[in-house]
């Protein structure tokens, strides 16, 4: 009897969540021993290192359930465009394209090992990320999945659909498509004189890439999308893929902020979100040294020393307040606090400027919401992602 492979959750999977591959129809041939169902995971695009991976499980009642996530949860160095240059950047190497193949093995009555394989599955796409166990439970209860809720429908972000942004904030949205197809991306901005301006881009969506969109209107037209146009201030702007996603609204905060920093972080769904840090900043420099003692030289002068620094490294460290944020935005911060890849764009009050540092967010216990306060903020502890010997 032929084996049947069923993979729960569609063709897109988050790497850190269980990828349930259920093989049914297994039956032990007459005289066979040590019967096991096999699952082979093969990289289609060659990005998944170390494959093909083969697992074997003894079936229970003709069914074997594999979890393929361990094989495909490969570290991905997230990339994103900055300085901003264009609307769309295809991130081809951020998804792993794999195929699953069911098979069976057993020792036949002659003592020979028999292995056979069924046809490959269609291509599945693995995105580095995951959702919480609570969310997995909800998916199960509602017969839903990451694929069902996001792929081809929503931008992959935990950030709220309405955010407050700086006029020159490098806003990004990321999208996974469930099919190769034509689409139109739209940005529409509104000013306080009731004027508005909309711009559209026709392009093709591809199923095997993550699409990075740079949404900042000023990037696309510095005149028509100017934050202040003929004295009128841009109130907000919307971005969406026409007929595919809902609109994301970005309320423009024209208030003067002494400090303007942004935190880019790899979100839990494969994208890179940008969080505006508008609060106060304290910048430190942490250094470590190793000292050594050497003898006083025979011809020592008053410039010579006996204690030398044999090595010294240092790294930047920041305490930056997020500034006042809505409860929804603060809740979304938890995604950032679990992220293992973050970058600080420092001193970026003007368009496409600032210094980008890889950083680690070191906060351990963070209060995201306190009902005693109407507005919320959080002080983030950041350290540079390098130990430098020279600056």
């Amino acid at each position: 009897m032929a084996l049947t492979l069923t993979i729960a959750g569609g063709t897109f999977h988050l790497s850190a969540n269980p990828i349930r591959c259920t093989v049914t129809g297994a039956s032990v041939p007459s005289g066979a021993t040590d019967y096991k169902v096999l699952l082979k995971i093969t990289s289609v695009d060659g990005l998944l290192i170390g494959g093909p991976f083969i697992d074997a499980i003894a079936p229970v009642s003709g069914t074997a359930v594999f979890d393929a996530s361990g094989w495909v949860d490969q570290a991905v160095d997230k990339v994103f465009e900055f300085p901003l240059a264009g609307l769309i950047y295809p991130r081809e190497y951020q998804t792993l394209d794999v195929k699953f193949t069911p098979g069976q093995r057993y020792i036949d009555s002659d003592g020979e090992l028999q292995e056979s394989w069924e046809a490959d599955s269609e291509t599945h796409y693995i995105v580095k990320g995951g959702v919480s166990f609570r969310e997995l439970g909800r998916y199960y209860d509602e017969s839903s999945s990451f694929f069902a809720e996001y792929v081809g429908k929503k931008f992959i972000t935990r950030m709220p659909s309405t955010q407050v942004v700086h006029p020159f904030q490098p806003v990004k949205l990321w999208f996974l498509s469930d099919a190769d197809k034509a689409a139109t991306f739209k940005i529409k901005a509104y000013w306080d004189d009731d004027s508005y301006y909309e711009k559209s881009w026709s392009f093709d969506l591809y199923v095997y890439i993550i699409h990075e969109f740079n949404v900042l209107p000023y990037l696309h037209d510095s005149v028509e999308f100017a934050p202040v146009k003929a004295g009128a201030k841009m109130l907000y702007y919307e971005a969406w893929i026409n007929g595919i996603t809902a609109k994301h609204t970005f309320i423009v905060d024209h208030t003067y902020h002494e400090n303007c920093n942004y935190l880019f972080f790899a979100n839990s769904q494969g994208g890179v979100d940008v969080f505006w840090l508008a609060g106060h900043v304290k910048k430190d420099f942490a250094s470590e040294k190793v000292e050594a003692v050497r003898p006083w030289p025979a011809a020592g002068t008053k410039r010579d020393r006996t204690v030398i620094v044999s090595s010294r490294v240092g790294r930047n460290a920041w305490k930056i307040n997020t500034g006042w944020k809505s409860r929804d935005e603060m809740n979304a911060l938890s995604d950032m606090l679990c992220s293992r890849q973050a970058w600080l764009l420092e001193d970026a009050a003007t368009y496409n400027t600032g210094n980008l540092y890889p950083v680690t967010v070191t906060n351990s216990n963070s209060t995201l919401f306190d009902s005693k306060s109407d507005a919320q903020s959080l002080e983030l502890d950041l350290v540079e992602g390098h130990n430098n010997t020279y600056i």
Partner: protein
Amino acid sequence: MLTASLNNINIPLDAGFSFRMTWANPACYMDELPGKSGIGIEIPVNEYSRMAFGNPERFEKYSLISDRKFPGFEIRSGGALLISGTINVISASSGSYSTWIQDELGVWGEEQRDKLISDMLWDPEGERTFANKTEYDDDTDDYFPFSIRNGAFWNGKGRETTVKREYIDEDGEVHKVNDTITFLTEKFRNNFLRIVNRLSLSGDIDILGQDNDGEACVVSPYLYLRRFLDMLFKINHFYIDRNDLNKSGVYLEKCLLLYNNFNIIGQNFVIEEQTVSTWMSEENEWVETVENVITGMSWAPETFRYADLVPHVSIKDLLVGLQNYLNYVFFFKTQDKVDIIDRNTLTAGDAFDLDDYFLGEWVKGEQKDVTLKFINEFDGEDRMFGQEYHDLTDRRADFGDPVETHSDLFYLLDPPEGQLRLVKDENKIYEYRWKVLTSEDVLKRETQLDAMGWEFISSGPQPYLYGTGDKIEEIKSCFSTLQNVNDPFFYFPVPVALQQGNLKKMKGNFIGFTPRLINSFELVFPQALNWDGDNGLFKTRWEKWARFWKNRMPVEGYFDLPLNVIYYISNHITQKFRTRHGEFFIETMETEFGINSIGATRITGYKI
């Protein structure tokens, strides 16, 4: 997420659970077959684990050793299998079971520790019938009855007889002396020219002999090495995956046979009751007894078992011995698969890049400068290797090039005193030294003379040495080969043994034989199983690896490896790896796994 299960039943783990897994590269081990293991596993006592392992208090008090082993245990991370095998409970308390996991290889090794490969189930379907053919090929045949000479096969078997033997004394005179040998030995000489598996004129195996009666015939099917390994693993439920013993065209490995001294020719006795009179000197009278006297024998091939054709060694000794002889490594993988990997090609292979995962700096050890000493265990039952073997390693500087025959020694001009030479066709080592010549005159009076000349000091061959370092590292193998001797009947060197044989009728008098390989294609691969020479084992099978191994530099480093890369390494651990600092071989890899984390992986190895 890390999960543990025993026979598909999940065992909840402590939130702070972690365990350390170790992998080892068999290519870097010369005296064992390393597997992987998981150690330091603390399983919390709860209703699930108690059901699996039993009540801990009762367990501590009453359980036997065998009660502490639980096969079917698996640990997976994100669904990916890290290790499966038998979990061994060391101790238990009210809080946890202290355990470690042994992989399939370890379990198998333990099962086989006190057993011999000849005890394995070689013949599940019963005895086999000998196929007498003109051609054998290891693609289709399990064995090849290749012709060798063994004049001692029938020694100690059956009645004895006296024969005249000629010898030439020091004056060149021919004398005849009486020798007592068995009747069958004499018959084997005459009927089959002492040849085991003698060919008939039609090209198949001659089972009748020159007297056309088959008497004293010896047929020993030698298992092809590749088929032998295939069967050996199969009966132990391992299956060869990658097999570097398989090559294209004509190659040595295809022609290698596993020697045995078992005769599959059976004897059907014609028995007559006869009255036998024996003079009893103490009683001073003749005593008559009625005995079943064998008055005749008919000789024909019998069914036989492969179990009788394999040496009586343990599986570990056999595999390690083969590794250290032919330089093929046995790498046991998951799912009962084993790779046979050519170690000599590993230094030339592609290196897998681990630079992206490298943490910190390499810690380098002291570079080795050793002399490798390849030691073979010669068969003590084979008089071709004799009892006069002495290890001359300490005198390796005194060795000159081997010579073909003894007479070649006398053509050497002014050999330095103390020089050693191997005489190949005798397999003996002579030293040029001060010796005493003794001669007799016609009146048997001895005269002694001091002289310089070549004197026998040891049988050969000697261990092969490679390197110049003072420290010697031994690479020991229980495998060896037979002595090849130029034979006037064959016109080329043939393997010769002087070893008593085994037969079904005399199982009680088993004569052991060590693992030895026969090169059945000596004409194409001359002296390929000896260490010396351009065709020898060192040049063809070891030189590249030995060059690296004698000067290897130990290194140690840490890597941040994802599971897929750990999987790759653990399945390709014999190959080369690299970082920006250069290439290296892994000796061991060790990773600590937590419930939701994979710790830094410690790798020890050798820089190339």
